């Protein structure tokens, strides 16, 4: 165990931003903290980073209070983007690197590596304010982990990135994981969380609705997503036992079942003399589970 939050509470007078939050993150793990806007994610990050003090509970790193760990072990990418607009890209990275105790050749090597990896070579000597939003975000991202932190917090790292840069970032996160960096991140894009996270915590108005492995979460719901490509009309599918909802997705139907056990009888019913091009039973996506748990849209 590396990071542990136990019964963490954050109160602002009569408003409770985070209530009895518990989760642990192991070394080298990618952990997702997801929730709607105002769910308490940024407050939780700030408490972990000792930028705000929790009202109750404990936050420890390898058993010691997080306050006591070397600050240079931490890396943080805030939700809202911002770097020094007047500073050149390379100077910016040198500044943040030096501030976190890096120097000389090691810092130069890291800067070269990440600038190359994020395809920023041509922008190296440009002022940050002249870069596109996506490139500014890449610079800020590199600045957050240029010093090789042991623990990295990324608050909405994917927002504002195009699909190509999103892939670059995903690969970078996976590379950091390979290097043993423990990563905690938040995202509104559930496909990214699903792709990267081993474990996650779902927050709703400061309360944890789930904390554990992604597979456990999916298992809670079971394989209730049935995709069928068939000649059977929608009206008949809706009448079948155990079917909660039928959606038409292009040329196929997506059925939400009450539970996994209804799949077999449905197969037997529709296969009776009907043509079935596709019959696939899956777990719900994280996006669907999230919407079900927190209720309504993410925004």
């Amino acid at each position: 165990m590396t990071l542990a939050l136990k019964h963490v509470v954050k109160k602002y007078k009569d408003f409770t931003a985070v209530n009895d939050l518990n989760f642990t993150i192991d070394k080298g793990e990618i952990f997702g903290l997801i929730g709607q806007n105002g769910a308490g994610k940024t407050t939780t990050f700030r408490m972990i980073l000792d930028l705000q003090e929790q009202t109750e509970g404990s936050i420890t790193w390898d058993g010691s209070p997080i306050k006591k760990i070397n600050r240079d072990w931490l890396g943080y990418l805030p939700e809202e983007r911002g770097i020094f607009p007047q500073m050149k890209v390379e100077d910016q990275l040198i500044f943040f690197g030096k501030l976190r105790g890096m120097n000389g050749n090691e810092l130069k090597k890291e800067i070269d590596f990440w600038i190359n990896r994020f395809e920023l070579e041509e922008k190296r000597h440009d002022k940050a304010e002249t870069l596109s939003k996506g490139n500014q975000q890449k610079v800020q991202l590199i600045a957050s982990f240029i010093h090789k932190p042991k623990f990295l917090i990324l608050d909405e790292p994917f927002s504002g990135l195009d699909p190509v840069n999103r892939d670059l970032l995903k690969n970078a996160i996976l590379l950091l994981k390979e290097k043993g960096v423990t990563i905690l991140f938040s995202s509104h894009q559930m496909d990214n969380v699903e792709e990267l996270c081993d474990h996650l915590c779902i927050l709703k108005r400061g309360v944890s609705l789930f904390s554990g492995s992604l597979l456990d979460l999916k298992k809670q719901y079971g394989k209730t997503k049935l995709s069928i490509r068939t000649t059977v009309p929608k009206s008949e599918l809706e009448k079948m036992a155990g079917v909660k909802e039928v959606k038409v997705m292009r040329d196929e139907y997506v059925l939400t079942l009450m539970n996994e056990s209804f799949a077999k009888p449905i197969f037997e019913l529709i296969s009776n003399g009907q043509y079935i091009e596709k019959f696939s039973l899956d777990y719900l996506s994280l996006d669907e589970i999230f919407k079900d748990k927190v209720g309504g849209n993410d925004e």
Partner: protein
Amino acid sequence: MSKLSILVKQLYKEKVKGKSFILMTLLYIAVITVVMFWSDIKALFVNEEALQIALVNETPVELEPIFASNDDITFSYPTESKESLYEQLKDEKLDAVIIVSEENKRLKAEIATYTPLKLNDQSTISSLIQYAGSIYGIQQLNLTAEEAEKILNSEPIITTTNINEQTGDTKSEDQKQSGMWVSYGAGIVIYFFVMTFLSIITTDVASEKGSRALEMLLVSVKPGTHFQSKIIGTMLVALTQFGVIFGFLFVLLRFTDGGSKWKMVESVLSDISYSYVFYVIAFLFLTIVLYLIIGALFGSLVSKVEEASQVMTPAIMITLIGFYVMISGVANPDTLLIKVFSYIPLTSGMVMPMRIGATDISTVEPIISLVLLIVTCVAAYILSLSFYKRSVLTYSTGGIIEKIKTVLKVTT
């Protein structure tokens, strides 16, 4: 290198290389140059010919040595008739005709012009006539030239003794005048530096906070270290500008006009005591520090850089009040208003040096004012540091009071 020095270095480099710093410094240098060479610059644009004045002397007094020609006025002593001279006035060949005569054993001067003279020229001519009148009066007493010169050059010996032991040594008028000039200069320096650097520190903190770069910084740097770096860095930038401007001023004074201007400065400085210099430097330094502390705190209150001017307004108003109180002291530095403001920490830096230099103040009063300023600086630092830690990551809208309330609400 410590984190504090990395932050200070970064701020210093950024500001000193910044266009606004360079332009502002050049502007100050340009203004100083214009002031120093004003008469030469004026001469370039205003091509003034010397006034042509005809002087008709109907007295036995020798007026030529008194009414000597210079660059501004050329005196001539024609023997022509009044009418002819007045014709020349009309033709603008002459600017004035002065007819000097006697009346009731007094010197009488009639000044005739066609175009009225300027105030400066009128004053110059009047003072020359006054002097001639004195010479004439002395000559009426049948004194020797030596005796007349003795009378004209005799100056009273004035000594002032203050028997109240509570007040310090009484200053001469020259000392007070010199003290007035130096304190006036110090007040102007405080005013301009506060105006410039209060804005720099406030907008700098506000811009880092607004851009969220501060959140990244505060992960590895304690808010207190960040706060200190802003004050030290901005102070160093201020001292750099101070050094450049005063270095330039020194070179101008020392090496132009054969050092004549520097001699004037030396004569002013010779009337000033070391203790006065200490007080001026101490008040100047501490006042700038106090305003920088306030500026950093104000910067931490706003959510974006556009709001910086809003929170700075109260501090700027106080500086303005202090400045105008100081200006009022140039006419009379002994008023109750001056006395009151010389103890208020935010304005004492501009007002107390004037009282020390230009009035017979007791030795205790400046010490009390300085101690008050030091205590305020320390208290402001401790309070601001504590508040800065809480406000620097709190984002809110509304006026300054609203912002303070929000910080207190979400952090206590």
